[in-house]
């Protein structure tokens, strides 16, 4: 070692190789979370659901949750371990972060959504942008728009083809398709659900700054409201309409914990709670309502 190197050694900002007990605990938690993900392969939804993700921008992959009812962890990743997802926004001129949203769009997020009319120009534009990302669908056939949810300038909605029953979930912002997923199709039938129950058709948790987390589920006919409280973070009000609930949020902190509690109210005024992972519709161990055995019907073979 020469003299310069010896001098520089004395300027090391992180000289101690040993982890503190807190750091060791944190590293083990991260290890457990990472190894819940599928080690390779393309996007699938949590709980072994058939590939249901379509039309995502190339900057974003969804990692499948390998275990039952585990979270899908969202990262922007490309070959070679390099990360993408920072192309300049076409509409706003702002850099997009890994979710495909801009920093401003994330900052404008609200825990309680607005509900613009399905016929409003901004919603029609959002639906058209999303449906254009599904090359195998006839966009003109998706005439039913529901579950419109607006948080800042970001709109999510469900679009349905009444003839086939095919339903997609869309997220768009400023004319950009951010996220689009098939919710119901002949090859991906919806599970049945009890009148007072809710389930989670899927959810994903973002890892890292600039990502988003999201959850979508079914709501029984007696369900009047749904909210979600992340394990770290404030309560988020879901949009509930026509038998579905949906919400999304910028995770904070952005490295987990990847869990939270769903609370739903029913027409009789009762309130019910369950961990998000426990109500995953495609889980083999569904549960609902205050930790008691599930009343959710699970699709055969799921």
């Amino acid at each position, binding site marked *: 070692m020469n003299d310069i190197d*010896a001098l520089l050694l004395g*300027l*090391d900002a*992180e000289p101690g190789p040993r982890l503190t007990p807190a750091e060791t605990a944190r590293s083990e938690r991260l290890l457990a979370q990472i190894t819940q993900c599928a080690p390779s392969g393309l996007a699938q939804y949590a709980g072994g659901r058939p590939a249901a993700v379509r039309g995502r921008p190339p900057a974003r992959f969804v990692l499948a949750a390998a275990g039952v009812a585990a979270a899908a962890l969202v990262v922007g*990743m490309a070959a070679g*371990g390099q990360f993408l997802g920072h192309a300049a926004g076409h509409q706003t001129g702002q*850099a997009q972060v890994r979710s495909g949203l801009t*920093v401003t769009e994330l900052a404008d997020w609200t825990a309680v959504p607005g509900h613009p009319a399905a016929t409003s120009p901004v919603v029609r534009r959002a639906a058209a942008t999303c449906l254009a990302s599904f090359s195998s669908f006839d966009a003109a056939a998706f005439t039913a728009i529901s579950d419109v949810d607006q948080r800042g300038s970001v709109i999510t909605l469900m679009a349905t083809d009444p003839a086939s029953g095919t339903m997609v979930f869309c997220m768009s912002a400023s004319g950009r398709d951010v996220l689009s997923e098939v919710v119901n199709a002949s090859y991906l039938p919806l599970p049945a659900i009890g009148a007072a129950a809710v389930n989670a058709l899927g959810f994903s948790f973002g890892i890292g700054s600039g990502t988003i987390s999201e959850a979508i589920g079914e709501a029984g006919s007696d369900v009047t409201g749904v909210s979600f409280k992340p394990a770290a973070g404030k309560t988020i009000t879901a949009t509930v309409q026509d038998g579905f609930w949906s919400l999304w949020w910028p995770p904070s902190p952005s490295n987990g914990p990847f869990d939270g509690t769903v609370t739903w109210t029913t027409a009789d005024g009762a309130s019910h709670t369950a961990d998000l992972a426990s109500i995953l519709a495609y889980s083999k161990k569904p549960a609902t309502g205050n930790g008691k055995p599930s009343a959710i019907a699970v699709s055969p073979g799921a």
Partner: protein
Amino acid sequence: MDPSFTELYRSHYSAVLRFVRRRVREADVDDVVSETFLAAWRRQDEMAAAPLPWLYRTARNVILNANRAVGRREGLVVRIASMGGGDPGAVDPIAGFEQRQDLVSLWQGLDPLDQEVLALQVWEGLGGREAAAVLGISRAAYSMRATRARRRLAAAIGPEPGDPEPSPAIRVARIDQEAYS
């Protein structure tokens, strides 16, 4: 849990954590470390030969892309202990406060890539070939940059204490030390 990945993770977590801490603010450290090991989990086949350089390179790319995402144009700057850093139990080779500040100023004046070239060798303890792999440059290009960066620092610092012709900066520092001793 995959035993081979678990072993790799536990073997290298501390090194990656320190690598990241030297380069980003504390609030972003966990995010970068998480993304780095998540990438490692998904691309284990790429790391077989040299896991640590692969991890460092991936962490570096995560940081650079995050910087680009928020519009930071400057390169990745390697943080140093401006004062009171280093192993508290070790003998500080930079004896005086002013001398340390001189070196800190000189370090901060280096091109970010030159900082990285030196940091990979001195603090991450990599050999030339591994360090070149982290930066994605040839071994020859790495050696040239490393030599040039060391010469730049050496020229600015001047002769070592005790040598006949100390540089003005070092000489001022010694005078100040004598005044307070």
